[in-house]
């Protein structure tokens, strides 16, 4: 199989993921999009590993080994991510990323008190 097919597929997957990260509101969907991007990279890694082992006689298969690492790390990451999202939802009643704006810069001296936080939530 020519290298271009998996490459194009992974590029499409990556762009889909990127779009999801940038445009989705729901935090869970954002996390899913991040998974898509990671898997696009994984696909690239495997495809290029095969291509290299053929073209350059590389027998280490470091691409495949790295893919396994990535999958393990992605599993851990999604576990933590989902736990955070769950905690945020329990705490605030929403997992909408647009409404989680506590780190926004406020005018000089204004402390991010409860009233101010409510106000930013309302305007967001």
């Amino acid at each position, binding site marked *: 199989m020519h290298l271009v097919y998996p490459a194009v597929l992974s590029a499409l997957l990556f762009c889909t993921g990127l779009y999801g990260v940038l445009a989705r509101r729901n935090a869970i969907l954002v996390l899913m999009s991040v998974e898509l991007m990671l898997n696009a990279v994984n696909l690239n890694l495997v495809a290029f590993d095969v291509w290299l082992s053929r073209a350059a006689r590389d027998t280490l298969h470091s691409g495949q080994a790295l893919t396994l690492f990535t999958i393990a790390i992605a599993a851990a990451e999604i576990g933590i991510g989902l736990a955070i999202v769950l905690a945020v939802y329990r705490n605030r009643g929403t997992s909408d990323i647009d409404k989680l704006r506590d780190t*926004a810069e406020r005018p000089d001296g204004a402390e991010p008190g409860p009233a101010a936080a409510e106000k930013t939530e309302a305007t967001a």
Partner: protein
Amino acid sequence: MTTTTLAVLVPLLPFLGAAAGLLLGRTAPGFVRPLAVLPPLASLVLAALVAVRQGGGPAVDAHTELTPTGSVPVELALHIDGFAALVAILVAFVASCVQIYSTGYLRDDPRYPSYAALVSLFTSAMLLVVYSGDLIVLLVGWEVMGICSYFLVGHYWETPEARAASLKAFLVTKLGDVPFLIGLFALATDAGSFRVTRVLGTVASGGLHHPTVVALLLLAGVAGKSAQFPLHTWLPDAMAGPTPVSALIHAATMVAAGVYFVARLLPVFEASGAAMLVLAVMAAVTMTGSGLAALAQDDIKRVLAYSTVGQLGYMTGALAVGDRGAAVFHLLSHGAFKALLFLAAGVVIHAAGTNSLAALSRMRGLRDRVPDAYWTMTVALLALAAIPPFSGFFSKESVLGAAEHAAGGHTAHVPGAAGLLVLVAGLVTAVLTAAYATRLWLLAFHGRGAEAPDHGRQPLTMTVVLWVLAIPSLAFGGLAYRTLPGWFDGRTLTPTALTSVLGTGLAVVGGLLTYGVWQRTTRNLVSTPLGAVAAHPGADAGRVEAEAIATHTPAYGDIARAPDPADPGRVLLGPLHRHAAAGFHLDAVYSALFVRPVRAGASLVRFLDREVVDTYVGAAAALPRLLGAAVRRAQTGNVQTYVSALLAGTVVLAVAVVLVATGA
């Protein structure tokens, strides 16, 4: 124990008492009073023992090198001659009296522990000055006294008067101490040692290169410490401190240190005729000026303060005519009766609830309320006015006798003009002294008007001390004038007929004149009611006094005088009264000469700092602040915005890398 060991213990015991008092004051309040009273008493006993062993014979000298300095060595040295032995007894005696008196006077004062410890430290420093045979060690005691006076004068630091007075006392004495230090260095450079004996030996062999400069530099420090014109202005203001502290400063420590220092190093001053003349002029101006000022003061303690300045003028006058025996004789007798005057004044202030003579003169029967203070103060005022046979008469006559001797040109090293100046000023001051003493006595104890308030009996510790001090005020001069020359230089201190008759006659004239005027002015008493009395008459004496000081300015418009037409001093001084009450406006002169230029300089520096330097700093900060405000707008808090920006940046970088790599 050897005499040296005893002598070392004399200043050491109060010092240890002070250290223990400061450490234990809060944790063990029960020990504070014994720790305050016992060390000075022990020192008194030891000082008496030292005096007995020394016995007016050759000086006891002992020294050990403190540390090698590389040049002129600093040594821990004792030099105990007749002067040192007797002055130490006076210091320890007055300090003991003051400590005993203070236990009653500041009975309920929350700051009594630190107060008592500082008084002990003060005493210890003075004893160090008295016994020290090394000028640098002497300077240590000298400066410790300066800082102690700062703390003690500012004891009632809640009142602005006390704060201002303590700062003034410290700064004015320091003004003199800087030239004093330079003078000491100049002296030691010529002598190759700081030891008093070596210095005196150098002077005797004519090894002093610039005697006039050295003497004048030293004189500046002496004028500051001993409150001589023109550096005397701190002393009347120092009355804002508690009365026992005034007694201590005026009678035994601090002001006596300057006179004692000159007495000890008199040959240095005698080496320069100009210095002796300056000393004489200083003494004459101080004496007469303070006499006039004392006559116009309204605060009973300020009258006494100016009288101290005047009596110190007598002592420097005696030194100016080269008779240190007479100076120290007057120092000793003055120490006793001035301590008595102050302590009795403290009792009067406590009983009457006011320190104003104008208010006291409108109180009937105060002398029956405080009979102890009345009788002892009468004795002390008679001694102050130099009426025979009280002790002040003999010591003052010895000064006048020495001045008369010098005026005839019979004293070596002393210009005849100096003697004449001191003699004339001394006689004029005798009139003034008698006048203000009589005025004080009449106004304080012979008032007419409402009955004096009754606050019960005074504490026993306060009244007993008065009688103890009354004995030397009465009898010291008469008993001692024959034996003292053996302790001093051997010059006779017996009053001469001419000056005795003149001095006593003038004193009687001054007293009678004041009495006559008082009888006339006292008719005005009824027509002008005046008076402010402390708000807490039942409180301990220290509190009553603090309130009396604090209310004087609001009640009478001035700290020093009251608008009282029944005051005989007003008639006696005539148009001079206003100026005399203000201390001849010397404070205003100082204010124009020093305070205002310094303030102007300070405001200039403030302007440069605030308006010039800060402008650059502010501008340097404004630009980053502006940029920061612009960047801050990007912080929306939306994660997706940040990621978008990140993506855009990455794309731009990637495109740039590709463009560069392809060489486009």
